[in-house]
């Protein structure tokens, strides 16, 4: 399929990422890419367009190359630029930081390029994927010009302006716009046609760029090493080029205006020409300030805003020219934080420009300039906050430094501001929708935007807010429609329509916080209309009455079910919105929805279309207006976000975040160094599934498989004496223990009902089939009945003692079920393939584990606030977890190991030295001689160390204090380095290799989903050949890396390739061997994933197929065996019994290629089968070698 460069529809509704990428792709020859939120979409689109054969405006199909990191992307880009190719990249945040070294080079060599950046926060006390200017400000010194867009339209337009300016000036450009706020906002814009772009960027400039390339036809060298005699002068040679940039950008903007009618300037002043107070600001927030300025000036004020578009080179002249002489007070607003600085960068730049101007006589007086921070990590910046800033400026002595938008009760920097100021046009329709992730609400809203936004004379905007969980997350959609372009880069505060698509949401958060007088409220409820009002929480009833809201209801789930659409309520609820929101005449609106259905579902056949259309009609028929009485009629309150017995921090801080009110938390409420309490998911009972696991105690054989694979740790087993059942609730389930040696003992498998996601993996793995039951097993999914009973049963279960670790057989899956998981109730996807491994890790070693976690899925479900899953046992011991970065995780983990080794050595030395003072040789020797291999050794060591600490507490002197401070290191510490394949195979590959080569005792667990799962499914070097992934839209054409074999080559690395769904026993063995091995260990754990395109309930079956088709052969390489003279290579899986095709056919990632490139798919599966056969033959051959045929550990000789 080949799309030639065609003239796009000029009026479109797209987001900022697509707006920028559309121009970048069409004006470049090469895109060097790497995924990072929120910029990934730009790279994904470029890859897709290239895969479809789309060309740039010069008729060339751009090359899109994914690199192993942003550092790699910048390096390849630098090379391509030196080779003369028009090249670009897309990035953000840490990614941009990794590009810094090359940015200096590219700028130093005066090379034309544009980087497109969806500006994002930097990981400091915590990571944030959201938007601010910290990343952009971190590269302002590199020599790149910085051009900032404030809207989706500008992101499109400035991508072109920047391209022209970089070619004219030879100075590289960084074009940025606000992450999420602009990158993900859908808005109406006018697209530039290919002709526009060709007219704007003359080909002779491209040829000039090419002519500067390295070529053996006219050789020279670039990138010399320079000495004190010339480096300094050389650095100054570029000044004239930078001096010209503002003029060149102005010229480009003028040319752009002539072509399109859209006029921009380097800095733009808006407001009263005689303003006394002015705000200087960059990015999308400028639009907010403009709205507020118009409002204030309409109310007798004289204020203005100076929007800075070109930030580097800093356009001093333009700023001086634009800032009215009348301005006596100026607030410069930075969306960044520079701790310890005299002020933030824009503030300092503006201040110095003004000071110099006054000093040199160019300006008569120096206004009072104050600097403020706002909007970090996409913190809302509203018109009310702008008013707060102007109010501060109006004071005789405004604060020189301030923050706005937060409550800083520590440093007292924050300004007060009016709660809400509505400056929007009354013609703008504003609607807010509450949904649950993947229920179709957001998708339907995007569709609604397209329906309405494509109507003549209508402009649309959509912005979507997601919570931090990957399963059952809450979504809030903010939609605006109106007859004029919508420039409101902040959330809706006064909505004319509020749709609540799930009853459970209104029980937990205040859904009317966005309501105003007369808001139309639609509630999807399982109750008859006449009961609805009475069932609402009292607070909501009061607000409905107070605001004279119009209340509507429908049982959308029932309507959808009756229409044969299962749980897909999106069509029904979208219809309701059109029917009652009055955005269009009702009949017209309904027809629009039906037309959209025909467009969307037409390809699925007439039957599907008819079903959806019937659902539309049924929706209208079952939609009811509910009379709002004059007085509230309910005593029902909201569900408390956390229980009363939760720890103080959870009650005071976490619960506020859970209520969606984290914005109100003052600075003093939050930890100063990013340290948070462990194990807080246990207090957040999310109840996200209507169906949950139910245990059949009569049928159960107590094998432990279900508890082993449960990704959410909601299945807990205990055995106990029957006397413990005294006082058990009536519905508490129990069975005789099915094990020898414990007569009379009982067994319970407790389902943590409120935490169960209904994923069904437990059912899949259960080996029991109850006879005559229609396929029932010993654990089944069933609708939730009585949550109160479940709570009571769990409460009782928790009173039963946890089984003694020393009495549990760790060597079997059956035994492991009795070990307490210290990783629980994460927000991972329902049925996640990664989390069972982490839970196992926590069960086996959690009490003494330190975990370094690479950025990715596991750092998000493992460490994303408000609640986190790593927890502790009844002794308060549990995994200590930290995430450093994406790229450095192996090194970070090694550092933890080195520190632990140092302190263990110190502790042992001090212990020896203090033998006399301690006065108990038995205690000292017991500690020093205990090799801590078995659980009984470990518990003896634990007791001994506790005793030692008690003794030390009674001793005085620095040595005792020293030993006391490191005594805990006398417990054998288990250091784990955890991450996904994106880290292990790509960005962290070099570090991982080095750490494995270090010989140190670290345990590396790679949760291998064979794709970048967290950022949405981009190909990694683990992605198998033939799989379609983002950045491999045409199917990955190379084999995945055999990381196991690379590690085995060292000889002294323990290596295991495991797949829990194929052989849980081998998984268990591998974890225990890896941890016991005194050297580096690497476990590659096959993790089925939503990004494979599978039914997640069948994830374990797919693991079985992966192994038994030879795609993922199970093996272990144990250097200990080598030392014992045995073959260290153990092939653990049987010879493949299915063709590779059987595995491929079950996954959408492979099937996709069959439908777009059947020939390629065929070729790849055949070649893949050959590789499977070859690898299997190699492995078989290795498994038959002698010990001497493998590399030896140097320690052996």
């Amino acid at each position, binding site marked *: 399929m080949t799309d030639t460069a065609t003239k796009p529809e000029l009026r479109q509704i797209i987001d900022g990422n697509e707006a920028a990428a559309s121009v970048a792709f069409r004006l470049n020859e090469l895109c060097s890419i790497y995924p990072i*939120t*929120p910029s990934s979409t730009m790279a*994904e689109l470029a*890859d*897709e367009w290239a*895969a479809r054969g789309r060309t740039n405006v010069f008729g060339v199909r751009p090359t899109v190359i994914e690199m192993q990191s942003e550092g790699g992307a910048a390096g390849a880009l630098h090379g391509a630029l030196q080779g003369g190719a028009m090249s670009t990249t897309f990035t953000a945040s840490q990614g941009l930081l990794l590009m810094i070294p090359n940015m200096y080079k590219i700028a130093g060599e005066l090379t034309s390029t544009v980087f497109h950046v969806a500006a994002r926060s930097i990981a400091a006390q915590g990571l944030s*994927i959201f938007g601010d200017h910290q990343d952009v400000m971190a590269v302002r010194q590199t020599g790149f010009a910085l051009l900032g867009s404030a809207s989706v339209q500008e992101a499109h337009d400035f991508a072109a302006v920047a391209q022209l300016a970089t070619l004219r000036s030879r100075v590289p450009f960084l074009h940025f716009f606000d992450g*999420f706020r602009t990158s*993900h906002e859908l808005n109406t814009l006018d697209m530039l046609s290919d002709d526009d772009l060709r007219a704007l960027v003359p080909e002779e400039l491209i040829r000039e760029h090419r002519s500067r390339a390295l070529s053996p036809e006219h050789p020279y060298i670039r990138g010399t090493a320079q000495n004190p005699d010339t480096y300094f002068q050389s650095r100054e040679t570029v000044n004239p080029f930078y001096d010209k940039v503002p003029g060149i950008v102005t010229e480009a903007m003028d040319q752009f205006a002539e072509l399109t009618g859209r006029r921009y300037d380097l800095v733009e002043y808006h407001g009263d020409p005689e303003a006394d107070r002015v705000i200087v600001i960059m990015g999308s927030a400028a639009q907010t300030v403009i709205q507020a300025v118009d409002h204030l000036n309409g109310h007798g004020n004289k204020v203005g805003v100076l929007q800075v578009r070109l930030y580097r080179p800093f356009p001093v002249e333009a700023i001086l020219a634009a800032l009215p002489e009348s301005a006596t007070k100026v607030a410069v607003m930075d969306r960044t934080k520079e701790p310890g600085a005299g002020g933030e960068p824009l503030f300092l730049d503006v201040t110095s420009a003004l000071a110099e101007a006054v000093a040199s006589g160019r300006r008569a007086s120096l206004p009072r300039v104050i600097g403020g921070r706002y909007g970090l990590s996409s913190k809302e910046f509203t018109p009310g906050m702008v008013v707060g800033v102007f109010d501060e400026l109006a004071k005789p002595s405004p604060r020189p430094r301030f923050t706005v938008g937060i409550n800083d009760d520590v440093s007292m920097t924050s300004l007060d501001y009016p709660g809400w100021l509505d400056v929007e046009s009354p013609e703008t329709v504003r609607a807010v929708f509450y949904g649950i*992730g*993947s229920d*179709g*609400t*957001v*998708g339907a809203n*995007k569709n609604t935007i397209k329906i309405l936004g494509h109507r003549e004379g209508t402009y649309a905007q959509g912005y*979507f807010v*997601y919570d931090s*969980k*990957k*399963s059952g*997350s809450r*979504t809030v959609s903010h939609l605006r429609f109106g007859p004029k372009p919508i420039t409101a880069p902040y959330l809706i505060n006064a909505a004319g329509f509020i749709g609540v698509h799930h009853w459970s949401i209104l029980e937990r958060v205040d859904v009317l916080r966005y309501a105003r007088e007369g808001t139309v409220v639609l509630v999807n409820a399982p109750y008859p209309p006449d009961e609805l009002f009475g069932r609402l929480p009292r607070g909501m009833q009061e607000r409905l009455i107070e605001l004279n809201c119009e209340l509507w209801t429908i049982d959308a789930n029932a309507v959808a079910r009756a229409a044969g659409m299962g749980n897909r309520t999106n069509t029904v609820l979208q219809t309701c919105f059109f029917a009652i929101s009055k955005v269009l005449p009702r009949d017209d609106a309904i027809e629009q929805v039906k037309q959209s259905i025909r467009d969307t579902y037409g*390809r*699925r*056949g007439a039957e*599907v279309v008819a079903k959806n259309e019937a659902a539309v009609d049924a929706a209208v028929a079952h939609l009811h207006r509910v009379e709002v009485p004059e007085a509230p009629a309910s005593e029902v309150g909201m569900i408390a976000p956390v229980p009363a017995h939760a720890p103080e921090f959870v009650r005071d801080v976490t619960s506020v975040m859970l209520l969606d009110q984290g914005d109100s938390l003052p600075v003093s409420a939050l930890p100063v160094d990013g340290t948070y309490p462990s194990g807080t998911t246990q207090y957040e009972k999310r109840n996200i599934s209507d169906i949950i696991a139910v245990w059949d105690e009569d049928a159960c054989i107590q094998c432990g498989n279900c508890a082993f694979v449960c990704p959410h740790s909601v299945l807990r087993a205990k055995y106990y004496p029957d006397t413990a059942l005294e006082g058990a609730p009536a519905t508490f389930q129990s069975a005789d223990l099915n094990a020898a040696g414990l007569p009379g003992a009982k067994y319970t498998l407790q389902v943590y009902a409120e935490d169960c996601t209904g994923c069904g993996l437990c059912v899949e793995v259960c*080996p029991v*089939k109850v006879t005559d039951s229609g396929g029932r097993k010993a654990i089944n999914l069933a609708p939730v009945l009585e949550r109160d009973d479940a709570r009571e049963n769990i409460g009782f279960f928790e009173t039963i003692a946890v089984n003694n670790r020393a009495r549990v057989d760790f060597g079997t899956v059956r035994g492991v079920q009795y070990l307490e998981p210290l990783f629980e109730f994460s927000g991972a*996807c329902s049925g996640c393939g990664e989390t069972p491994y982490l839970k196992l890790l926590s069960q086996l070693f959690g009490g003494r584990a330190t975990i370094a976690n690479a950025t990715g899925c596991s750092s*998000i479900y493992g460490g994303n606030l408000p609640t986190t899953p790593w927890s502790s046992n009844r002794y308060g011991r549990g995994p200590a977890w930290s995430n450093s970065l994406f790229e450095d995780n192996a090194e970070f983990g090694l550092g933890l190991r080195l520190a632990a080794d140092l302190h263990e050595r110190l502790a042992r030395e001090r212990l020896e030295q203090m033998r006399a003072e301690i006065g108990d040789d038995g205690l000292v020797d017991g500690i020093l001689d205990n090799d801590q291999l078995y659980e009984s050794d470990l518990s003896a060591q634990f007791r001994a160390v506790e005793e030692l600490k008690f003794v030390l507490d009674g001793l005085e002197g620095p040595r005792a204090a020293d030993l006391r401070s490191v005594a805990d290191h006398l417990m054998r510490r288990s250091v784990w380095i955890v991450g996904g394949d994106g880290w292990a195979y790509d960005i962290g590959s070099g570090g991982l290799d080095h750490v494995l080569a270090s010989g140190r005792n670290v345990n590396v667990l790679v949760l291998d989903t064979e794709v970048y*799962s*967290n*950022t*949405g*499914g981009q190909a990694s070097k683990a992605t198998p050949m033939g799989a*379609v*992934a*983002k950045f491999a*839209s045409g199917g990955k054409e190379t084999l995945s890396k055999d990381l196991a074999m690379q590690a085995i080559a060292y000889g002294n690395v323990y290596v295991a390739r495991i797949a829990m769904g194929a052989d849980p026993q081998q998984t268990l063995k591998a974890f225990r061997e890896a941890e016991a091995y005194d050297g580096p260990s690497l476990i590659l754990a096959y993790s089925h994933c*939503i*990004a494979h*395109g*599978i*039914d997640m309930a069948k994830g374990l079956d797919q693991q*079985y197929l992966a192994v038994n088709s030879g795609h993922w052969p199970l093996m272990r390489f144990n250097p200990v065996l080598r030392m014992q003279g045995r073959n260290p290579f153990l092939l653990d899986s049987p010879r493949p019994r299915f063709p590779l095709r059987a595995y491929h056919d079950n996954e*959408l*990632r492979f*099937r*996709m290629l*069959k*439908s*777009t490139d*059947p*020939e390629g*798919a*065929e070729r790849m599966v*055949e070649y893949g089968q050959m590789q499977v056969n070859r690898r299997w033959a190699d492995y078989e051959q290795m498994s038959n070698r002698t010990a001497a045929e493998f590399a030896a550990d140097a320690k052996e000789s």
Partner: protein
Amino acid sequence: MDLTTRYLGLELEHPVVASAGPLSQTLAGVEALAEGGASAIVLYSLFEEQLRAEVARDEQLIEVQSNAFAEALDYFPTAPITTKSAAYSYLSLIERSVKAVDVPIIASLNGADLGGWVEFSREAADAGASAIELNIYLVPGDVMMTGDLVEKRHLEIVSAVSDAVSIPVSVKLSPYFSSVGNVALQLVDAGAAGLVMFNRFLNPDVDIETLNTDAEFELSTPQEGRLPRTWIASLRNHTTASLAGSSGVESSDDVVKYLLSGADVVMTTAALIRHGRSYSRELVGGLQSWMVRKGFVSLGQVRGMLAVPPVWEGETVRRGGYVSAIQAAKARYGAL
């Protein structure tokens, strides 16, 4: 020696045809079958119903986790998935096969509704298929469906497809009609240019490791050739439509038996899987040797030699055959 035969109006070099099966799922497979000596190749069956279900499933897989998490609003590139593109793989195989090999390529379709059958038949014809084999396979298990309805459904489909396309259409039918011969003749009346005898039903086994039923197909055994041969022999002199013997071909003897019974062509997948794709050549070689040994010079002399004559005291003879079979069995195994 003349081994040529006519099947569905196509002139074939000899009567050994590769039947629909896993060997023709790829171009390389098709090429190997042609190289191995098959005189025509029936491609693997395209299951229209399955295709639609797969499209719906794939769309659902894409939707299920979309727009749920800020970092990953979706997990796949936005390739359009449609039944057309799902069938694209099959149509592309037809096109490529027709270009790559000299023997006729027959498309095999398995549909769920009339619309699907007709649409895909047209597309297969456009893609260059020489003929279409309708694999009418109604999964047994619906105990409410009457025999009458099953027959009616077959006739409707055959009639609609043969009206829609200009290339010949054959039907691969089941042996489990209450009157197979009559249904076969009705199908010819409805437009079928040929009959393939027979389709084999799925007989799932039980996997005691996974504790599941195992839906894997077992390859046919030579014994399974008896039933189709009986019906081919019965039909040969009642219709001019092409007759193909399928099932139970292991050696050239089985090929000969089919031809003697009246088959125009003999189809096999099992033998080619067991002995390799070039086994067609050996089957033809065996046939040739047999003909030499017996003194036949053309297939016309062999075909239908043992078919039931057109005017025949059928029941008496058939009954007689049954009685002699019983007697022979008694002699061999003792009293039954």
